[in-house]
């Protein structure tokens, strides 16, 4: 897996190796007697190092797609290959392990643990990976510094602005050095200046070869990514490279 990421960078940004691939993925929710098809027959292939935006009207299934990609949920049918492994039928524990070791999440509402400090929030994924306390503290501090919060290590989330909280979220998503970073409307709750800061960080990460998949409603935001996928009613409407 590791090698693929590296090889891909040598291609100079031209995605070649598949890092996440959806094959005929369908997700249906049962609402009483009615079946809601949130995703139907989605086929998507994400390459290592790609920076992808997912767009579409509200309720079209963007979050559902992202949750599937993030192994938070299993598809109703179809296959999901993360790397070369089909993870669509793995056990709950295995999915937790995959999330903890290979995936990073960034949420619209930041989702920081309120009683933990900045550095402790960044440490959460490392804690579940069983990383030694001193090493995890060191790594979390480095990451906090990298997102510009080196002087806020012991602050609680409620003492930070929205933009700062989202930067903690980004640092936390980077803690386990994930294969793919998944962000659901990361700038949705932010003013344009804070949003711009976050997007700047994303550009940096992309430049460093990270694979980023981001849901957004904003065309300006989407324009900064390499590839834009548009969904409508649970289907892929368009999939274009910028």
């Amino acid at each position: 897996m590791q090698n693929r990421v590296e090889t891909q960078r040598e291609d100079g940004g031209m995605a070649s190796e598949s890092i996440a691939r959806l094959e005929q993925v369908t997700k249906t929710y049962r609402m009483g007697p009615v079946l809601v098809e949130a995703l139907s027959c989605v086929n998507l292939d994400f390459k290592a190092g790609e920076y992808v935006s997912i767009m579409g009207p509200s309720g079209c299934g963007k979050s559902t797609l992202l949750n599937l990609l993030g192994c938070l949920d299993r598809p109703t049918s179809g296959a999901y290959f993360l790397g070369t492994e089909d993870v669509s039928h793995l056990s709950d524990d295995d999915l937790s392990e995959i999330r903890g070791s290979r995936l990073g999440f960034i949420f619209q509402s930041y989702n920081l643990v309120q009683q933990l400090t900045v550095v402790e929030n960044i440490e959460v994924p490392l804690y579940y990976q069983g990383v030694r306390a001193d090493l995890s503290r060191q790594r979390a501090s480095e990451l906090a510094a990298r997102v510009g919060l080196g002087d806020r290590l012991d602050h609680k989330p409620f003492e930070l602005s929205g933009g700062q909280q989202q930067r903690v979220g980004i640092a936390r998503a980077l803690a386990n050095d994930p294969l793919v970073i998944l962000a659901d409307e990361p700038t949705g709750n932010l003013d344009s200046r804070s949003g711009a800061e976050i997007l700047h960080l994303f550009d940096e990460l992309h430049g460093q070869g990270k694979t980023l998949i981001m849901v957004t409603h904003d065309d300006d935001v989407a324009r900064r990514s390499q590839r834009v996928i548009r969904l409508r009613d649970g289907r892929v409407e368009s999939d274009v490279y910028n």
Partner: protein
Amino acid sequence: MFTTKPHAKHALRKAFAPVRLWRTVRLGVRSLWLHRLRSLLTLLGMVFGVCSVIAMLAVGEGVSHEAQEQIRRLGSSNIILRSLKPDEDKRPSTQRSYVIEYGLSYADLKAIREILPNVRLVVPARIIRSYVFNATRRIDGEVFGTVPWYPEMRNVRMVAGRFFGDEEMETKKNVCIVSTVAAETLFPIDSPLGRNVRVGSDYYKVIGVIEPESSRVNSGANADASSGRSEGSTLSRVYIPLVAAKERFGEVLVKRRSGSFEAERVELHEATVQVAQQDQVEETAAIIADVMNDRHKKKDYEIVVPLELLRAAERTKQMFNLVLGAIAAISLIVGGIGIMNIMLASVTERTREIGIRRALGAKRRDIIIQFLIETVILSGAGGVIGVAIGIAIPYFITLFAHVMTIVTFWAPMVAFSISGLVGIVFGIYPAMRAADMDPVEALRHE
């Protein structure tokens, strides 16, 4: 060109499981500390449960210990026979002055000995301090009224002659046995056997010399321990038949009332039957009860079996402990339910946190452990505080109410372990609820 760092999990070494557990405990403490008042109120149920159990146990233990001590002092392999004055209203009230005869007699003891030759019948001897004369020689001695089997009862040896027998006992013969010390003082030259000594106005014929008993009784089998001269006058004894002693030295107790008098004649106030094996006590007591029942028309005696009293006391204590256990169980369950209630609320409140942790790699068991540890910390802290208060309360009860209390070692241990156990039992369900949440739903929760 290699901009991607080596994967985190290769670079960062893993921690030992116990270290992680310790971090989880610290996290739990912090979460509880965040809601200090709520946590404190939740613990109170546990605190009251545990401390009341320990305090009640301590009082119960103290009371039953005192009771058992009293009984044990009577001797658990003994059967005690006592003379009992019959009910007064059964006596003719027309008689103005009378003498009542009641109670144990020497003949009763003889009958018991015939049926149960293997038991030791200890009779408290009557001791009268008196001068004992041989013509002009005089000692300040003890006149000892006793039973014919006294030497074997006390395990003392005859030095010369013999002890008195049943015949001499029953006929109240004026015979006596002198201790070696008394013999040497009163009869320094010739043998005392067949001679007479005078006590008060009565003469007693010396039929035997006995070794001083203190040397044997006090220092075990060491019979030749310099014949115990240091024991002084206590060894200058003269043994006479008990019945004779009763008569000569006045066993009649006279009570005077306005114009009349009432006298009591009791041959023996008390006798103790020593049974060799404790498991034969009840059987022996039953036989003695039969014998006594045959011999006495009135119930002018009582048979006290300390072992039975002890058993009864133990049964009472067991009952007490059972009731206490029930109370304890109820209060701990109530405490546990309180904790469970709060934990369920906490789980709901922290749904978002659970979702975050699950998304970031927490397995179901990580969530279970996190919440279980919080519950155990709560109930364990309640247990510790409860134990501390529970140990302090009996101390103050003893101090102010002067009631004996005993905090046994195991009472705090058991109470504390149970509080921990309650934490686990009542923590499982909320923890499972937390772990069973769907990560996506939990993340969406607001």
